[in-house]
């Protein structure tokens, strides 16, 4: 950021150091965006890269853009991404295993060729004239003022149109995510009335409270050992999928007694007689 007013075809050593250090960080961030398995990690890596880019904007004399990059991109857009990741959650799509045949090789080939061509193109281009932004930034009394004067004069129509675009995008997002209600929402009064109107005022007992099993299809046992229908949800009750386990524990107890009796060599006959 130093000495930009006198920018020539070479930048200062400080900027060079900054470029090489942060450039590596940016590339690593980009690579991890692509290669990280979890979308959250990708998003965070991308945010890092974007912050580095913000620094580079500042270094290139684009002060306004540098700040906007941090505030809008890193602060708003990336957080939006994180929100969506949270909404969508982890899916099979997160697997890095390729499913399309040859896709990875084609992508690698194309990417490599494209990158080489791009870099060769930049290398070939005669980019020696290097003016720096000194005069441009100071002409209107600063970078922000300079941009403002351009936006509101030369690019005013583009600016208006992007405004319209943003509105449209907002409306579009609302339309896309909006779910049509099929019936009127109940207000608080109706909800409370509905609740009192039922047979059971207090909350329903949890299933399997007094049972040995803690599953939804096993009714809780009342203190006298009989199962309580109320503890099983309506759907299962209607389907008749309730598992009655009230006798199961007694049978198990009996089997245990028999096994221990056999083991102890106790005669079973008297029991049978007793029966």
């Amino acid at each position, binding site marked *: 950021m130093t000495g930009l007013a006198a920018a020539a075809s070479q930048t200062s050593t400080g900027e060079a150091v900054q470029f090489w250090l942060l450039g590596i960080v940016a590339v690593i961030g980009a690579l991890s965006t692509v290669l990280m398995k979890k979308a959250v990690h990708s998003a965070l890596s991308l945010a890092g890269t974007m912050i580095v880019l913000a620094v580079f904007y500042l270094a290139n004399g684009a002060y306004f853009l540098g700040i906007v990059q941090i505030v809008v991109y890193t602060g708003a857009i990336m957080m939006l991404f994180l929100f969506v990741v949270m909404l969508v959650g982890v899916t099979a799509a997160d697997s890095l295993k390729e499913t399309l045949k040859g*896709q990875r090789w084609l992508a690698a080939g194309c990417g490599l060729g*494209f990158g080489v061509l*791009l870099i*060769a193109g930049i290398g*070939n281009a005669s980019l020696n004239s290097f003016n720096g932004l000194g005069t441009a930034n100071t002409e209107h009394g600063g970078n922000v003022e300079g941009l403002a004067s351009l936006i509101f004069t030369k690019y005013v129509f583009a600016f208006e149109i992007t405004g319209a675009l943003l509105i449209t995008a907002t409306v579009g997002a609302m339309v896309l995510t909006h779910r049509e209600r099929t019936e009127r929402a109940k207000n608080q009064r109706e909800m409370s009335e509905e609740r009192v109107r039922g047979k059971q005022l207090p909350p329903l007992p949890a299933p399997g409270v007094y049972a040995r099993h803690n599953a939804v299809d096993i009714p809780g046992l009342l203190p006298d050992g009989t199962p309580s229908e109320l503890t099983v949800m309506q759907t299962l009750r209607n389907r008749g999928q309730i598992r009655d386990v009230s006798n199961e524990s007694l049978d198990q107890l009996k089997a245990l007694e028999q096994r221990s009796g056999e083991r102890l060599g106790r005669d079973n006959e008297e029991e049978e007689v007793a029966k």
Partner: protein
Amino acid sequence: MENLIALLVAAPLLGAAVLLCGGRRLDRAGHWIGTLLAAASFVVGVVLFLDMLGKGAEDRALHQKLFSWIPVEGFQADVAFQLDQLSMTFVLLITGVGTLIHIYSIGYMEHDERRRRFFGYLNLFLAAMLILVIADNYLLLYVGWEGVGLASYLLIGFWQHKPSAATAAKKAFLVNRVGDMGLSIAIMLMFTTFGTFAFGPVLEATGETGEGKLTAIGLMLLLAACGKSAQVPLQSWLGDAMEGPTPVSALIHAATMVTAGVYLIVRSGAIFNAAPDAQLVVVVVGAVTLLFGAIVGCAKDDIKKALAGSTMSQIGYMILAAGLGPIGYVFAIMHLVTHGFFKAGLFLGAGSVMHGMNDEVDMRKFGGLRKYMPVTFITFGLGYLAIIGFPGLSGFFSKDKIIEAAFAKGGTEGWILGSVALLGAAITAFYMTRVMLLTFFGEKRWQPDAEGHEPHPHESPKSMTIPMIVLAFGSVFAGGFFSIGDRFLNWLEPVTGHSHGHAPVSATTVTAATMVVLVIGVAIAWAMYGRKPVPVVAPRGSLLTRAARRDLLQDDFNHVVLVRGGEHLTRSLVYVDHTLVDGVVNGTAASMGGLSGRLRKLQNGYARSYAVSMFGGTAVLIAATLLMRAV
């Protein structure tokens, strides 16, 4: 006066429209309407004729332009009429004979429940034929040409419930199409050559045009004439056309429509004069048909078919004369007019005979009818004498002139043509005498038919006999009236031109020779059919007789060459189509299908896969850009 020309056509056209669109409510008056309108047309024609007689020879031609038909830059077709002496002759013949035959048909078709329709068709024919002869350009002539073809088709097939009539109508129509094709090609050639169709400019421009083109046009016109006038090689339809009602045979297939070819050739005389090769072909066609028709006429036992052969032969005379150039044009037309009288009379006589004989047509079952139908006998007999060229009657003058003109052609050609014409005259005498003897003389040979009804020959009603009598008058006196003082020659010469040629033999010699061959022909016929009784069942006959009974194998020839040839051609074309064309088409489709079957695997639906393609494409574009910059 010019305005009357359109009236000539308008009257029968109105009749056709009224009769054909009018429906059943006109059934009772239909024949009167048709006859009156035909007569009206005749009256108009006579008025125009008298007016024309009052003018000098050079300004007799009348022109009337009705409207511009196809007004396009560089392509002007008008509905315009031209009435000169040649057209006038035809107008009088068509409307005159036409009116007579309308009258005859009132009696002849009395018991036919579709009589109104018949008169509608007859009126349609008259209108079309009049358009044909008074059109002032070839395109309008073509309209009339097709119109008479249509009317002919409708009338031949009038008794369409008979399969033979339906087939005959179809055959006539199809064979005529070949000729019509020739006319349309000729018209196209004319347009490309002269840039117009009108008679005046076309015929004046023949002097500056190459002979090759004129020969082509001439040959195409000849093809058209062959189709309409039943000349070899398109002659086969005329015999079958006798399936139509007899008045139709008389009007269309004897007196008027079949002469349209002669009209066409005479009208286009300037073209033929400038194209000697085409003219030679015309003469050859005429000479061949002359003999062909005559030979066929000798062998037929069907009275109408014998007369049809005779018609073919007589038109052969006319075409021959027309092919001789200015020597013969006038005589072609003169023979045409006299032939119109006596042949119409003969056909009406034949119709009258059939009317009295329960529609029997086999001459071997007639015999001795002169006692039963005297009027028919006399009128038919006068027609007979006229056609064989009995001295003093119409045919004598007109045919004699043609034979003279043929000799006057000069050189070897002249001798050959003259001899052919003489031979034709002998054969004509033979077969006409045969018809006469078989029908009216000898013992009565008719027998009860299958249901036991014996025919009771009787004279026909007045409406039929009067036209026959009128036509008989024409047959007797027309030729003499035309020839004495060269009336007809002077009348037509301004239009067709005339030259006398240089006859190698004197006119008297020719006449004498004609008389001699006539006597020979009649004598042979008498020897064969007059002296001894005629067998009811035809004897097997010689090879030539049997061939002639089969129309000299014309249908067999057509069948073998055209039908079979066409079948083979289509079969091979179908084969080529199935293997080669379909092979190419199906092969293309199959290879495309196979290719797309492979290509569609690229469309796997995965967005990432498409993205790779886009990305690769971008890379290629960048590479290309860099490469172009490097170069």
